[in-house]
């Protein structure tokens, strides 16, 4: 290949990475490795997620919602072998969606009320593992601590998307789900005439909070509330099954038609927000000194 135009190469790679669905990198695999393509599907109460679609029966008031964003980071992906050993999946470094051991899954396509999003979507995590028989999967919802507190102005993709910045707290939104609801068509203002808007109605933004530092002005060394969720399915076949992320299950206990006064819209992981206990509980996270009521309910397999 005559590499006259490196730009053409780069755009070719980006396009390949942007195409949805499994793209087995088999050609590049070293001997003894097998390709892994972990497929994700976004849903709202059992229906496929789509920008601008109306979904009924949401939350404690059985509200109707119209989502405007749905993205999340997963990391530390492992397959589990027959002996129960967790084997890390080496992610393909595609320069777009995957970096080190983290990946951004992006279900919005920038259309309709998702206009602050990107047209490109990404619904799979791609990588490789040593050849073998695997019967389960494990991953973390969130950006690993080591990658979460760097300089976002110079971070590589997919840590350079301003929509996923969590600037005030430092780090990234692990989950960004925004939606208008029957009771809250917008946060505080009239609907955006351009058809979009930022966080509006009832948002679910997950991220680390109370990140303590050795001194008040140094970078955090740990977070009191990391708010990362470890997810494991003991019976999972990546070749035939899909990981489903149904936000309806996270909203099931919430009244999405109202917002607790003087708090962020919906639950943005901040302390002392009365909208957060049902959301954080459904994510399998402790909140406000109350232990998690049970395992996470966002993810299931199908």
């Amino acid at each position, binding site marked *: 290949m005559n590499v006259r135009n490196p730009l053409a190469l780069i755009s070719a790679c980006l396009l390949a990475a942007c195409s949805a669905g499994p793209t087995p990198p088999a050609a590049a695999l070293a001997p003894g490795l097998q390709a892994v393509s972990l497929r994700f599907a976004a849903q709202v109460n059992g229906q496929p997620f789509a920008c601008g679609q109306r979904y009924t029966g949401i939350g404690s008031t059985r509200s109707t919602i119209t989502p405007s*964003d749905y993205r999340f980071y997963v990391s530390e992906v492992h397959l589990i072998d027959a002996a129960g050993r967790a084997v890390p999946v080496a992610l393909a470094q595609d320069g777009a969606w995957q970096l080190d051991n983290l990946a951004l899954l992006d279900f919005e396509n920038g259309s309709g009320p998702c206009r*602050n*999003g*990107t047209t490109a979507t990404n619904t799979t995590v791609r990588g490789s593992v040593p050849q073998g028989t695997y019967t389960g999967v494990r991953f973390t919802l969130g950006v690993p601590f080591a990658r979460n507190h760097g*300089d*976002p*102005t*110079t971070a590589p993709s997919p840590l*350079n*998307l*301003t*929509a996923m*910045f969590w*600037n*005030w*707290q*430092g780090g990234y939104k692990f989950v960004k789900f925004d939606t208008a609801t029957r009771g809250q068509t*917008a*946060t*505080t*203002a*009239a609907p*955006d005439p351009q058809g979009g*808007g*930022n*966080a*509006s109605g009832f*948002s679910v*933004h997950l991220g680390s909070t*109370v*990140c*303590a*530092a050795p001194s*008040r*002005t*140094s*970078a*955090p060394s740990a977070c*009191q509330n990391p708010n990362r969720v470890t997810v494991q399915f003991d019976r999972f076949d990546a070749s035939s099954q899909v990981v489903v992320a149904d936000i309806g299950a996270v909203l099931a206990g919430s009244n999405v038609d109202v917002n607790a006064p*003087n*708090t*962020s*819209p919906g639950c*943005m992981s*901040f*302390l*002392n927000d009365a909208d957060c206990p049902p959301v954080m509980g459904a994510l399998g996270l402790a909140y406000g000194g109350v232990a998690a009521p049970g395992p996470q309910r966002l993810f299931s397999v199908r």
Partner: protein
Amino acid sequence: MTQLHRLAASGALAVASVALLAGAADSWRWPLPDWVPPPAVPADNPMTADKIELGRHLFYDTRLSHDGRMACATCHEQARAFTDGKAVATGVTGQVGTRSAMGLANVAYLPVLTWQNPQLTSLEVQALIPLFGEHPVEMGLAGREQALFELLKADPTYRRLFARAFPDAARRGEAALFSLSTLTRALASFQRSLLSFDSPYDRYRYGGRADAVSASARRGEDLFFGEKLECYHCHGGLNFTDNLKHARTPFAETGFHNTGLYNVDGRGAYPAAAPGIVEFTGETPDAGRFRTPSLRNVAVTAPYMHDGSIATLPEVLRTHYARAGRSVSLGQGVNPLRSEFIAGFQITEAEIADVVAFLESLTDERFLRNPTHGDPWPPPHAVAR
């Protein structure tokens, strides 16, 4: 030598001389009086005149917002020492913030930024919050950075300014030149250029001009630095704040204090919307602790306190500091977590007038009108006020 080669050679010569000129223009010197130490600047963002000029254009450009109506300068007006005269700001979606826009005079000397975020130590990163933040939405650009870069690329003024400010990035291509990295570095450089050390008090105290301030201001100075009012413990030093970092400090000083403005639960807490640095540290004694603001130009930065809840300087003294915290005036009782220096004091109206005269002597009129800090755009890009 062919015609083409000669052309190329002269082009190379021209490029070389431009580079030399640019190098000379970029040997930045701080326009500071001798007694003022220069600020410390991040190693990856040295000051240059070209970056400052680009940052100034960005700072005053309303196109850096979701609806094209809000610039940095909307909440940071030069004539008000880069504050906005409002208690709290309203973002492009109408969402109202919970803290007051802070002044930017001498912001280059601050080791930590904003009222309430002890982990925010760089102006470059701070710029992301108003631009892209979602709680509250301020300029509303979350997710729209590509559209913003396209806009900048399409503007001939910005093409010229970015290329001059970031020649290395320009050589790496457009994606590097029009990026979050260059955008935030230029905005930070402009803000670091906002230096205010030419108030009447500076001329009196450091310039040897005894008549630069009034007799009332000198009496106010005595009160301010005295043990009755105790103001100077926190509002001391170069910028009248105990937060200081510059080229000659071996380590940064920081100060966060609870002044007893509120006491909503009887145990020292402030209203949840702006709880103090406890939001980050999670430690109860940090409730109500905010970074000490500079008092330079304070007379033009009303209303006061982190939430703009006190309208005038006499009121700040009368109903807040003299009462051991405004929580007492509010009937919430004295705040148990307040700074040990907030003890309350007896003060006469004449003494209040003297302290205010001293604070007014910290107003640097030239800073408020310095054209190099002003709006560089002709209409229609000028910030609508």
